C-alpha cells in the first residue's frame, strides 16, 4: 500500500489513541427508522384518499432491481435515486400506500420525469411506468393546485387551444405574423431577451413553422384516391392532431401523398381533435377523456382499416385511451370505461412508418431518386419505447435506393423535448439534449457524409432543430415522411 496523501496536522496514521477510553463508538445518530413520515400540514392527503378509484396495483410489479437506472435521462443527468424510474416508483408506491403525503417535495421529482418511457423498454418486470406516472400526476393534480407559472404557461394554453380548431388557426396566424415581423427573432437574439423570463425566450427557439391554416379544414371529408393501382387498395383515416394541423403542414401533406402511393384511399374526418397527450402528461384526466370520445366518434366509420398517425406522441396516446378510462369516475358510462372498445380503437391506430414498412412491395411499387444519401435515424421515445416500434421504420428507410442508414449509439434515448417539457423544465431538458448532441457530433465525426437527421415526432423535430442550430451541426432535420416524399419520383404520365 502506497501512501498518497497524509492528513494535515495528524501525527498518527489513524484517529486512534492508545487509550481505549478515547475510542468512542459511533454515536447512535439515528434512533430508529422512521415508520411514518411527518405529515407537514393538514392539507396533505393520506394514501387511500389520494388514489381512491384509481387502480394502481401494477406498481407492485417493480422489484427494485434498478436495471432501469441507466436508461433514464434524468437519472443520467442528475444522478439521484428519486430522479430515477425506480426511485419515482418507490415514491408513487409510498403515496399509494399512505406512507408519504402529497406535498411539494414528493411532487418535484415526479414532475421532473420526461415520461419518455425508456425505463419500460429496460424493465424486465414489465412495469407499466408511463401509465402509473400519468395516474399519479392526475391524482396529485386533483389534490394540489399548481403554481401560477405552471397554470399560466402550461394549463391555460392546454385548456384554451388544442381542442379548438378555429382558435388554433387564429393562434397560428398570429404566430406567423409575429415571426414575419421579425419579432420572434428579435426576442430570441437581442439583448432584450435578458429582460424577459428565460422560459419565454427559450420557447422562441422551439417554435414550429406556423402556417396560419388548418390542414384538416382544407381536406375534411374528401376522399383521396390511390395514385396508382400497383398495390392492393385499403381505406385509411389520417389523424391530424392539434399543433401539427396548423404548423409544418408539409408533414401531413407528405403523409397524405405517401399513403396514396401506398395504394390507400384516404379520409380526413372533420370531427377529429387533439389526442390529449399533452394534458395527460400534465396530469389532466377529465378533459382528454372528452377528446378521446370525439376521436372515437370521428374514426368510427366501419370501412376504415387503419387510423394513420405521423406524430409518435399522439400515436402512443391514441393507443392508450384504455388507461385513461381505467380510473374514470364511477358514473362514467360503462361502454367508455371498459377497455374493450379502446383496445379495438387502439388496434386500428398505426404510425405512418410502421404502416408503410408493413406494406409488402411499397418501395418496389414506386420510383425513387437513388442519389446517395447518408441518413441519421433518431427514434422518438414514444415510437420506440411507448409503441415499441423500431425495426420496421429502420428497415423501411434503409431499403430506399441510395440511402445508407446510420443509427447513432444514443438513437433510442430522449432528446429532452417530451411534449412541452423543454419549455417547462428548460435547464434539465437542455442537459438531456446536450447528451444527444454529443452523440450526434461523435456520429458525424465517423460519418461526415451524413446530411439529414430524421425523427418521427414533431416535439423531437423542433427540439433537434434547435439543438442542431445551437451546436452548428451540418444537418437538415426532417420528419421521415418528408424525406420519403422528397426521394419519391413523380408518377410517369
Amino acid at each position: 500500500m502506497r501512501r498518497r496523501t497524509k492528513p494535515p496536522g495528524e501525527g498518527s496514521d489513524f484517529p486512534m489513541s492508545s487509550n481505549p477510553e478515547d475510542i468512542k463508538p459511533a454515536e447512535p445518530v439515528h434512533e430508529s427508522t422512521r415508520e411514518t413520515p411527518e405529515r407537514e400540514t393538514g392539507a396533505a392527503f393520506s394514501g387511500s384518499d389520494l388514489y381512491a378509484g384509481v387502480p394502481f396495483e401494477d406498481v407492485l410489479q417493480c422489484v427494485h432491481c434498478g436495471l432501469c437506472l441507466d436508461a433514464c435521462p434524468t437519472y443520467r443527468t442528475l444522478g439521484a435515486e428519486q430522479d430515477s424510474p425506480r426511485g419515482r416508483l418507490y415514491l408513487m408506491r409510498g403515496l399509494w400506500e399512505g406512507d408519504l403525503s402529497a406535498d411539494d417535495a414528493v411532487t418535484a421529482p415526479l414532475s421532473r420525469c420526461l415520461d419518455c418511457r425508456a425505463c419500460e423498454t429496460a424493465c424486465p418486470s414489465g412495469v407499466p411506468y408511463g401509465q402509473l406516472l400519468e395516474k399519479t400526476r392526475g391524482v396529485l393534480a386533483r389534490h394540489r393546485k399548481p403554481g401560477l407559472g405552471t397554470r399560466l404557461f402550461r394549463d391555460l394554453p392546454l385548456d384554451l387551444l388544442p381542442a379548438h380548431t378555429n382558435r388554433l388557426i387564429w393562434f397560428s396566424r398570429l404566430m406567423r405574423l409575429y415571426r414575419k415581423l421579425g419579432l420572434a427573432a428579435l426576442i430570441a437574439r437581442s439583448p432584450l431577451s435578458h429582460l424577459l423570463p428565460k422560459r419565454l425566450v427559450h420557447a422562441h427557439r422551439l417554435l414550429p413553422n406556423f402556417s396560419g391554416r388548418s390542414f384538416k379544414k382544407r381536406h375534411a371529408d374528401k376522399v383521396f384516391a390511390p395514385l396508382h393501382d400497383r398495390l392492393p387498395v385499403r381505406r385509411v383515416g389520417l389523424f391530424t392532431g392539434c399543433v401539427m394541423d396548423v404548423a409544418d403542414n408539409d408533414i401531413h401533406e407528405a403523409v397524405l401523398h405517401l399513403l396514396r402511393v401506398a395504394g390507400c384511399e384516404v379520409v380526413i374526418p372533420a370531427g377529429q381533435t387533439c389526442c390529449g397527450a399533452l394534458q395527460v402528461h400534465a396530469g389532466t384526466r377529465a378533459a382528454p377523456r372528452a377528446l378521446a370520445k370525439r376521436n372515437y366518434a370521428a374514426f368510427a366509420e366501419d370501412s376504415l382499416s387503419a387510423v394513420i398517425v405521423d406524430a409518435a406522441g399522439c400515436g402512443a396516446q391514441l393507443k392508450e385511451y384504455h388507461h385513461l378510462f381505467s380510473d374514470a369516475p364511477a358514473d362514467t358510462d360503462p361502454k367508455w370505461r371498459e377497455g374493450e372498445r379502446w383496445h379495438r380503437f387502439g388496434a386500428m391506430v398505426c404510425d405512418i412508418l410502421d404502416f408503410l414498412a408493413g406494406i409488402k412491395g411499397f418501395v418496389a411499387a414506386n420510383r425513387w431518386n437513388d442519389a446517395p444519401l447518408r441518413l441519421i435515424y433518431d427514434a422518438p421515445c414514444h415510437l420506440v419505447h411507448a409503441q415499441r416500434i423500431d425495426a420496421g421504420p429502420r428497415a423501411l428507410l434503409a431499403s430506399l435506393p441510395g440511402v445508407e442508414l446510420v443509427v447513432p449509439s444514443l438513437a433510442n434515448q430522449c432528446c429532452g423535448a417530451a411534449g412541452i417539457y423543454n419549455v417547462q423544465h428548460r435547464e434539465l431538458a437542455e442537459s438531456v439534449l446536450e447528451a444527444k448532441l454529443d452523440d450526434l457530433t461523435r456520429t458525424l465525426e465517423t460519418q461526415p457524409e451524413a446530411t439529414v437527421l430524421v425523427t418521427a415526432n414533431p416535439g423531437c423535430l423542433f427540439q433537434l432543430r434547435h439543438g442542431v442550430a445551437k451546436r452548428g451541426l451540418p444537418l437538415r432535420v426532417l420528419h421521415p415522411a418528408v424525406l420519403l416524399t422528397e426521394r419519391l419520383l413523380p408518377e410517369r404520365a
Partner: protein
Amino acid sequence: MALDPRVRKKLIRVLGSDYVKDDPITCYSYRCDGLTLHPAEPQAVLYPADRDQLVAAVRILSEQGISFLPRGAGTGLSGGAVPREGSVLIEMVRFRAIGPIDPVNRTIEVEPGVVNLHVSHAAQPHGLYFVPDPSSQKACSVGGNVGENSGGPHTLKYGVTVNHVVGLEVVLPDGEVVELGGPAWTTPGPDLLSLFIGSEGTLGIVTKIICRLTPLPERVHTMLAVFGSVREACESVSAIIRAGIVPAALEMIDRIVIQAIEQTIGAGFPTDAEAVLIVELEDLREGLDAEAEQIETILRANGAVDVRQAADEAERALIWRARKEAFGALGSISPSFYTQDGVIPRSALPRVLERILAIGAAHGLTIANVFHAGDGNLHPLILYNSRDPAEIEATHQAGREILETCLAEGGSLSGEHGIGLEKSHLMDGAFDEVSLNHMKQVRAVFNPRELLNPGKIFPQPGRCGELKGRPGDAAAQLRAKSGIRV
C-alpha cells in the same frame, strides 16, 4: 433524522448545497438498494464530484464520529448499501470518468460510478472487454462490483471481479488516500488488493479502478438444452465438467422462471420444459464445433429432449437477455421475492435442489430457480406476498434453511451477492468465533471505529453473542506488535 446543522454547513462548504441532501424525500428514496426487505433511512445523502471532495467529506464525518457508507447504482441484493444505523450515504454516481485505455497492457482506468457495461463498450473498438458480467451489468457500477466481488454467468471460465482488477485508489475511513496494486501484473507482500475487493464497503471507498481487459473471444457458440426434469439438467452439468470441458457459462433456468420470462421478455423458451440449460462455449475458431458436438452428445445422453443452437448474434443476445433479466421477470408473477445466493459443490446439485423444493413445500412457498449451475452458485428465489407478515416470516425461515443446507453440503453463504446486512446473522453458522474475530481484526486495521458501513457482514451483538473485547483494541495491539504501517 436530519443532519446536525453545523455538520451540514461544513459539508455544504465542501460539496456545494445541491450535493448535500437531507430532506425527507431524498432520505426516503435511499431506504433500500436491490434488497427491499430491510429498509433503513440515511440521515443524509452526499454527492461528491471527485476524490478531493470525497476526502474532505469523509474527514468531516469521521471527525464528528458520524458513520457513513458508499453507494453505487444500488442494485446490490444483500443490502450492502442500506444505511443500517442511519448512516450518511455517499452516492458515488458522479464518479463517471472512463479511460484512459491502454490497449497494449490491456487495462482501462475507470471511476467507480461508471456502469459495468460501459467499460466493455469503451474497450470494444480495441477488441477487448471487461469480463465480470453480473445480471445487472447494464445498470450496476464498477465500484459496486469491486465492493461485492461480483461475478456473473461467465465466472465459470474467467473468474470474478478480483481476477479482473489490477489496481485501486481507495479513501480510507479517516480520509487517507492509498493506492493498492497498479498496472504491473503483480505486487509483492500481502495481497491487500484482493482483501479490498469483496470487502463490501467496510474497508474503504474506492475512487479509481484499473480494470484488466480481455480479448473478445474469436468465436462464441451458445446452446439451449431442454429437459423434462431438473435432476437431468443438473446431472448434465456435472457430466460436461467431468468430460474436461470448461464452457464459458453453464446456466440453469427452471419451469417457473421460464414461464415468467415468456410472459415478459418472450425469448421463445419452451414453457412445458421443467428446466433449460444455457451452455456457452468461447474459444478459438478451430475446435469449437467439435466441442459443441461433444456437449450435445453429453446433453442428450443425460436426458435433454432438445438441444437448440443460437443461429446468430441476435438469438444469442435474446437468450442472454432472458437469463440476465430473469429476476426482474419474476415481478410479473410475484410482487415480491427473496433471492438467495448459496454455493454448493457441483456434485450436490441434484440433491440440494430437491431439498430446496421440499423446504418451499414445507413452508407453503413457491421457490423458483435460475442459477450459475457450472460453479454450483444457486439463486433460489422465494416468492412471497410482502403484505402477509406470516409469509414474510416463513420466507426468512425458508431462506435460512436453504443456506443451512448449503453449509451442510460444505458450501458457502454467498457466491456473488455478498453478506451485507441480509446474511450477517448467519455468519456464525459458517465460521467459528476465532475466524470471525480474525476477520473483524482485519477490518479494524482499516476501519477501527466501524464508522464505515457499520452493521454489515458480521453478526450483530445480541443476535449471536457479543465478541469479547473491542476489535479495535486487538488491532491496535496487533499493529503495535508487528509495526504494520499502512
